[in-house]
C-alpha cells in the first residue's frame, strides 16, 4: 500500500509556519533518519494476516455498502456533513430574521412566517445541529482515542444516524410544506397546545424531538459503553484523554436528561392528539409541569453542548502549547462538577413564573456556583499556553477565540442567574446575546478549531492555514458585531421573538449593526466551505501526525483504515505518542478472520475478554424506516402507533437474529 510521508523524528523541527504543512521529510534528513523511516515503513502484520483483516473489516461497494456499513468513521462523517448542512439552513433562517429586524415596522416577512423562521432557527440549531455534530465527532474519535477497533454497538450507531436524518427531514419538509412549527424552540403550553396551535405544526416539532432524542440516547449509550469497557490495556481512568472524560460525563448527562424532553413532548402530543389534560389547567393539569419537564432537560442540554466544546479545547491547547494540560485532575473534577451541577439549575429558566422566591434563591446560588468549575478550566487552559511554547496554527486561534468569547457569555450568565436582575433581563435580547455567546463561543468556536485540527486525520488532507486564519478573524469580528449590540438592546427594553419593533425606541442602530455582523458571519462560513472543498481536492497530503500530537488517534494513517489499528495499543501514560515517539507498545491476538474487539476492565483497563463485533447489516436501516413510519404516522393517527409496531418488531428481530446455522449443524463463529 502507498505510504504517507513520515512524521519527523524527535528533535527535528517541523517546517516553517504559514505555509500549509507539507509533512514531507525535509531535504536535511540524515541516513539514520532514512533507516528509521524504512523501519517505520515495515508493515506491522504479516501480509496474509493484514489482507484478512482488511477483508474482514471492509464494506460492500456502492449504495448497499453505504446503507449497511457499521464503520463508526463513515457514520460519523455522514452525521457531520448532515448536521453542517442543517447548520447552514438554520443560519440562513437567522439571516432572514436579521434582515427583517434591520428596520422598524419592516414588512419583509409576515409575523406568521417570522414565527416559523425563529422556531426553525432555534429548533434546528439545538436539536439537529449542535448535539448531533458534537456527538458525531465523538463517534469518530472515541474508539480511536481509546485504541479500539469499533464502537461497542456498531449497528446501533448506524440506526441512530438514519433515525436522526428522518427527524431532521420531518422538520424541514414540514417547514417547506407549510406545516412547520411556529411556537419557538421550547414550545410553551398552552400556546403549543391543541386550543391555540391547531393543525399539525406543533406535532411535527414534538415528533422530531422523539426522533432526535432516540438517536442521541443511542449514541450516548454507545459512547459510554465504549469508554467504560473498550479502552486500550493500561489506559486507566486517570490516563484517559480529557476528550474521552468529557464524553463519558456527557453521555451520562444525556442518558439522564433526554428522557425529560421525551416525556414533555410526548405528553404534549398526547394532549393534542388524544385529548389528555396534562397541561390543561382547567382540568387539573399544569403549564408549569411542561416547563419543569422541559427545562430539567433544557438546562443540562446546554452543558451537553458546551462540554464537548471544552473537550476540543482540552485536546488542541496541549498539542499546540507542546506540553500536557496544566491541572489534569482539576480539569476532570471540573467537568464532572459541571455535569452534576447542571441538573440543579433548571428553575432559573422559570424565575418569572411566580414560583416561591426562597426556592428561586437556591437556583440563583447553584447557577452562579457553576461558574467556579468553568473558571478553573479557563485558568488551566491559559496556564498551559503560558507555561508552554505555543505555536499559533488555526486550531489554537479558535481556542483563544473561545476563551475571549465564552467568558463573556459565562459572566452574563452570572448576571441572569440573579433572580431580581433576571426579572428585568429575561425574555429580552440580553438573554439572546448571553446564550449566543456561550453556545457559539463555547461550542462553535471550538468546533471550527476541531475541524481544523482533525480534518487531516479524517480526510488525509491539510486545510489551508491562510484561509483558516481569514475565516477565524471574519468569524470573530462578525460574531461580536452581530451579538454584542444585543446586550444593549435588551437593556434598552427590546423583548425576544418579536417580528418587528416601533421606531423611536432607540433600537434601530443596534439592530442594524447586528445585521451587519450577520453578513460578516455569512462571509466567514462561506470561506470555510470554500476552504474545505479546495483542500479536499488539492490540499497538502497529511501524514499520520501532522501536529505532533500525543493521543492514540494520531498513530493511525490519515484517514485510518476501517479496522483502525493493526494491533491493540498499550498505554502507560496520558500522552502515549509523546512517551513512545519511536515505537508504540501493542498487544496482538485479536482475530483477523472475523470482526473482534477487546473488552477491558472499567477502571484499570486490564484485558478481560474478546467479543464479536457485528458485520455490516441492512437491519439498522430497515428498523429506522419502521420507526419513522410509526412516529410520523402517529402525527396523523394514533392507530399508526399500534399497527406500526408490527413491522418494527420484525425489523428489530431480524437485526438481533444471530447468524447461526440451525440446530444439528456445528456452528461457525459469527
Amino acid at each position: 500500500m502507498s505510504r504517507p510521508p513520515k512524521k519527523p523524528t524527535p528533535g527535528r523541527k517541523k517546517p516553517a509556519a504559514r505555509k500549509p504543512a507539507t509533512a514531507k521529510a525535509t531535504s536535511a534528513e540524515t541516513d539514520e533518519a532514512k533507516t528509521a523511516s524504512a523501519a517505520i515503513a515495515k508493515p506491522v502484520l504479516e501480509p496474509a494476516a493484514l489482507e484478512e483483516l482488511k477483508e474482514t473489516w471492509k464494506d460492500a461497494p456502492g449504495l448497499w455498502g453505504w446503507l449497511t456499513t457499521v464503520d463508526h468513521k463513515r457514520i460519523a462523517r455522514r452525521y457531520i456533513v448532515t448536521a453542517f448542512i442543517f447548520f447552514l439552513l438554520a443560519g440562513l433562517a437567522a439571516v432572514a430574521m436579521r434582515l427583517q429586524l434591520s428596520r422598524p415596522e419592516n414588512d419583509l416577512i409576515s409575523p406568521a412566517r417570522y414565527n416559523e423562521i425563529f422556531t426553525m432557527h432555534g429548533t434546528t440549531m439545538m436539536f439537529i445541529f449542535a448535539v448531533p455534530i458534537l456527538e458525531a465527532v465523538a463517534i469518530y474519535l472515541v474508539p480511536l482515542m481509546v485504541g479500539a477497533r469499533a464502537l461497542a454497538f456498531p449497528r446501533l450507531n448506524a440506526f441512530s444516524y438514519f433515525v436522526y436524518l428522518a427527524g431532521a427531514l420531518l422538520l424541514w419538509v414540514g417547514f417547506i410544506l407549510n406545516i412547520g412549527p411556529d411556537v419557538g424552540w421550547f414550545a410553551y403550553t398552552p400556546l403549543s397546545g391543541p386550543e391555540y396551535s391547531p393543525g399539525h405544526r406543533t406535532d411535527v416539532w414534538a415528533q422530531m424531538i422523539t426522533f432526535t432524542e432516540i438517536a442521541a440516547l443511542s449514541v450516548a449509550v454507545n459512547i459510554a459503553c465504549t469508554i467504560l469497557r473498550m479502552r486500550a490495556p493500561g489506559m486507566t481512568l486517570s490516563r484517559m484523554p480529557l476528550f474521552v472524560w468529557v464524553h463519558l460525563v456527557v453521555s451520562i448527562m444525556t442518558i439522564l436528561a433526554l428522557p425529560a424532553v421525551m416525556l414533555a413532548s410526548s405528553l404534549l402530543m398526547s394532549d393534542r392528539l388524544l385529548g389528555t389534560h396534562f397541561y390543561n389547567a382547567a382540568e387539573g393539569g399544569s403549564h408549569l409541569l411542561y416547563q419543569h419537564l422541559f427545562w430539567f432537560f433544557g438546562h443540562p442540554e446546554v452543558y451537553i453542548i458546551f462540554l464537548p466544546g471544552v473537550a476540543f479545547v482540552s485536546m488542541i491547547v496541549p498539542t499546540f502549547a507542546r506540553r500536557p494540560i496544566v491541572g489534569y485532575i482539576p480539569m476532570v473534577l471540573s467537568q464532572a462538577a459541571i455535569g452534576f451541577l447542571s441538573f440543579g439549575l433548571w428553575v432559573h429558566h422559570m424565575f418569572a413564573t411566580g414560583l416561591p422566591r426562597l426556592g428561586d434563591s437556591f437556583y440563583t446560588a447553584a447557577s452562579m456556583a457553576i461558574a467556579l468549575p468553568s473558571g478553573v478550566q479557563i485558568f488551566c487552559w491559559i496556564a498551559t499556553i503560558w507555561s508552554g511554547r505555543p505555536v499559533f496554527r488555526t486550531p489554537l486561534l479558535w481556542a483563544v477565540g473561545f476563551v475571549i468569547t465564552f467568558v463573556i457569555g459565562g459572566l452574563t450568565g452570572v448576571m441572569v442567574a440573579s433572580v431580581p436582575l433576571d426579572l428585568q433581563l429575561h425574555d429580552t435580547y440580553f438573554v439572546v446575546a448571553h446564550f449566543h455567546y456561550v453556545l457559539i463561543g463555547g461550542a462553535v468556536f471550538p468546533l471550527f478549531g476541531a475541524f481544523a485540527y482533525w480534518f487531516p486525520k479524517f480526510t488525509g488532507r491539510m486545510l489551508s492555514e491562510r484561509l483558516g486564519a481569514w475565516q477565524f478573524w471574519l468569524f470573530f469580528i462578525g460574531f461580536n458585531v452581530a451579538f454584542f449590540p444585543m446586550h444593549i438592546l435588551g437593556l434598552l427594553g427590546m423583548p425576544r421573538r418579536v417580528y418587528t419593533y416601533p421606531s423611536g425606541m432607540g433600537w434601530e442602530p443596534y439592530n442594524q449593526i447586528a445585521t451587519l455582523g450577520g453578513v460578516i458571519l455569512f462571509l466567514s462560513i462561506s470561506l470555510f466551505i470554500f476552504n474545505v472543498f479546495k483542500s479536499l481536492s488539492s490540499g497538502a497530503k497529511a501524514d499520520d501526525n501532522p501536529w505532533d500530537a500525543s493521543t492514540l488517534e494520531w498513530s493511525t494513517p490519515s484517514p485510518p483504515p476501517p479496522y483502525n489499528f493493526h494491533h491493540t495499543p498499550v498505554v502507560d501514560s496520558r500522552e502515549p505518542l509523546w512517551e513512545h515517539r519511536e515505537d508504540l507498545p501493542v498487544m496482538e491476538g485479536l482475530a483477523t478472520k472475523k470482526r473482534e474487539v477487546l473488552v477491558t476492565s472499567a477502571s484499570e483497563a486490564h484485558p478481560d475478554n474478546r467479543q464479536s463485533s457485528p458485520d455490516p447489516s441492512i437491519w439498522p436501516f430497515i428498523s429506522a424506516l419502521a420507526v419513522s413510519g410509526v412516529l410520523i404516522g402517529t402525527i396523523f393517527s394514533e392507530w399508526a402507533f399500534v399497527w406500526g409496531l408490527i413491522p418494527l418488531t420484525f425489523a428489530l428481530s431480524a437485526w438481533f437474529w444471530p447468524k447461526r446455522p440451525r440446530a444439528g449443524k456445528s456452528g461457525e463463529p459469527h
Partner: protein
Amino acid sequence: MKRAALLMALALGACSGMQTPLAPAADQAEQIRSIWDVMLWVTSFFYLLVIGFLAWAVWRRRRKETAPPRTQVHDQGLERTLAIWAGMIVAGLTLLISWSFLVDRSLASTQDDQALHITVTGAQWWWRVEYTDGTPDKQFETANEIHLPVGETARIKLMTSDVIHSFWVPNLSGKMDMIPGRENVIDITPRKIGVYRGQCAEFCGFQHAHMALTVVVESREDFNRWRNHQLTPAAPPASPKHALGKAVFKAKACSLCHEITGADAGGRTAPNLTHLASRRTIAAGTLPMNRGSLAGWISDPQAIKPGAKMPNVPMSAAESDALVTYLESLK
C-alpha cells in the same frame, strides 16, 4: 398638529428611556438597578483578569516553529495560583449571590393593606385593566393603559384569558408571567412622575410584537381626577354624526366584543372603549391615539396587526367617518 406633538412626545420619551431598566422610576426597578451596577463591576474585573492572563500567555513564549513536546512538567506554582484564583471566584460569587439575595428579600416584603389593587389580564394581544378597590360602584375597567399615583404601592394581580403572557414595565419593575390556572402578583411603588412603556415579554403568538402598554405615573390629585372620570359612563352622542357613529357601532356588531358603559354595548372579549379617547395609544400601543389611526385601524386591522382577533368589517366611508367621530368623543 396634535398628532405631530404626540409623535414627538413618543419619540422623546423613547430617547429618554421609556422602556428600560436602566432608568428606574420605582423602588423595585431601583433596587434591581443596584444589582446590575455591582454585577457590571465585578464581572468586568474578572474578565479583565482573564484577558490579561490570556494576553500574557499568548505573547510570552510564542513560537513560529513547533518545538518538541515536554512531558516532564512541574506545575506546583501554577496549581497554587489556581487555588488562589478559585478562592477569588468563590469570593466574587459569594458577594454577588448575597447582594442578589438581599435585594430579592427586600423586594418580597411589601405591605398589602394600603396598596392600590389592580387586576391586569393578558389576552392575545391586549391588556384588560381592572381597578378593583372598594365597592362595585367604585370599580372600573379600561384597557392597555394604567395610571398610578406616585409614591404609593400598587399591587397588581396578573391573570390571562388565553396563553402565557408576561407583564413587564422595565422602568418600574421586573417582569412577571401571566399563566393560566395561576394568579401571580407584582408590586410597583413608583417614585417619578412620567409616562412609561411596557411590553409583553413572553412569546404569545402572531402579534406578540405589538402587545405594549402604557403606564402613567402622576400625582395623587391627578390620579383621583382620572379615576373619577373613568367611573363615569361614556359621553353621550353630541351631534347627529356622533349618534350615527354610535348606531354604526351597534349595527356592525362591534358591541358584541367591545364594552362601552352607558351606551348599551356589553361585549367583554375585546378592550373596553368607554374612555378610549382618553388613552394615549390604540391597539395595545401599536398606534398613537388620533383620528387617522382610528380610521386606519377600523378599516383594516389585519393590515396593521395581521392575525389580530379583530376582523375586517366592511363599511361605507360615511359610516366609517361617523364611527371614528363617535369614538374620538369617548374621552
